[in-house]
């Protein structure tokens, strides 16, 4: 305490100087209109900047929910666009056909939003875990998509989690794709390395397309509806046997920063699965005879 008092006693004139300067400053800004107005406008700029930063922080904190909503909306819109594009190309005469088809397409699929809790992109056979499981209606062999395009297929489920085989799985993932607007189809295969590049194999040699065109899901599987973006054609190669094309595709989904996804639960899924199993059983029986 005595040290403090000694300090104050030794430097008291500095405190007095600061006090007098503050008083002068207050008088300057309060009683001089020009300096006061400059101070006010500068203070407004500073205050506005502070409020802007606060608003940005608030917006960032609410980004999670906004992201989920946008993902859902994006998926719905992509499907609607694919449906509309198909109807336009077919030049349907029935004016209500587009509406009916769109409604039926939307009714068919239900989306279960999920978050990726575990992911990898550096291995040859990557796997992903999402935080939805059987209790949320997720079953094996269901398709998983995100706001930008396809993600993968559900491989294993528990009550509250599911393991997904993403498109970045060299051994297992084979997703049926088609070139948008052309309907030539192949299957998507990732060979490792760059997580943003994969290949569409077995595209017929008579197929006509250009670099930069979009590759989308073909709809020929019971997993993904048609029209979900896969990526853009970057380069074209010949297949190893020379009988088809091999398209290098720049994937639209960035797997390295994937967070919000949605599982496509198809109401007719169970019916189609049963039908497919019945066909396989019948063909096995005929082969055994």
């Amino acid at each position, binding site marked *: 305490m005595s040290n403090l008092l000694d300090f104050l006693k030794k430097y008291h004139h500095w405190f007095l*100087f600061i006090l*007098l*300067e503050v008083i*002068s400053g207050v*008088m300057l*800004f*309060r009683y001089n209109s020009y300096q006061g107005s*400059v101070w006010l406008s500068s203070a407004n700029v500073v205050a506005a900047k502070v409020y802007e930063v606060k608003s940005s922080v608030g917006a960032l904190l609410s980004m999670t929910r906004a992201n989920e909503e946008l993902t859902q909306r994006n998926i719905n819109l992509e499907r609607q666009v694919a449906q509309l594009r198909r109807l336009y190309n077919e030049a349907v005469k029935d004016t209500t056909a587009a509406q009916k088809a769109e409604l039926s397409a939307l009714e068919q699929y239900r989306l279960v939003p999920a978050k990726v809790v575990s992911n990898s992109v550096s291995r040859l056979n990557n796997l992903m875990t999402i935080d939805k499981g059987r209790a949320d209606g997720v079953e094996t062999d269901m398709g998983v998509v995100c706001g930008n395009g396809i993600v993968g297929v559900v491989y294993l489920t528990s009550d509250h989690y599911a393991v997904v085989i993403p498109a970045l799985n060299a051994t297992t993932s084979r997703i049926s794709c088609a070139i948008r607007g052309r309907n030539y189809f192949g299957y998507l295969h990732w060979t490792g390395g760059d997580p943003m590049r994969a290949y569409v194999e077995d595209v017929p040699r008579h197929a006509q397309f250009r670099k930069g065109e979009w590759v989308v899901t073909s709809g020929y599987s019971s997993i993904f509806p048609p029209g979900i973006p896969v990526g853009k054609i970057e380069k074209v190669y010949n297949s190893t046997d020379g009988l088809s094309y091999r398209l290098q595709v720049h994937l639209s989904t960035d797997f390295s920063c994937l967070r919000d996804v949605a599982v496509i639960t198809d109401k007719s899924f169970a019916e189609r699965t049963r039908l497919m199993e019945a066909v396989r059983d019948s063909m096995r029986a005929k082969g055994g005879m």
Partner: protein
Amino acid sequence: MAVDILKRWALFVVLCMVQVLFLNHIWLFDVATPLLYMLFVITFRRNTPKWAILLWSFCLGLTIDTFTNTPGLASGCLTLTGMMQPYLAEVFLPKDAPEDIEISMRTLGISKFATLSLILTGTYCLIFFALEAFSFYNLLYWVECSVFSTALTMALLLAVESVRSK
């Protein structure tokens, strides 16, 4: 001690009156105005308490502001000049100078007094005109006002001091 305080008060009043009644109306070439009241701050004795210098300078500035209708302008600048005065004076004073020596042309000599006055007056003018403009939009004008006002004030200061020292 009481005599010194009375002398200080007299100098205070005279300088304020001269400044307010005559010198504030001088605005040479739209850039230069003499600020003779700087003499009050420059000539504080060596052993004057720093708090007293600050209070005197503040009051002088406030009085000038009252007459020029610019509250806070001169008082802020003069307070800063008052803070600088004792430290700068120590630099120019001889080492064997008495404790209560008066800062003037007679005790310091022309060159040292002029240098000390130049530094204090120059600093005051720079800050004063910067606060008055409150913007560096017209930088050249600010420099012109500071330089020419300093020069005019110095001329007047040296003239008054040379008369006082006789």
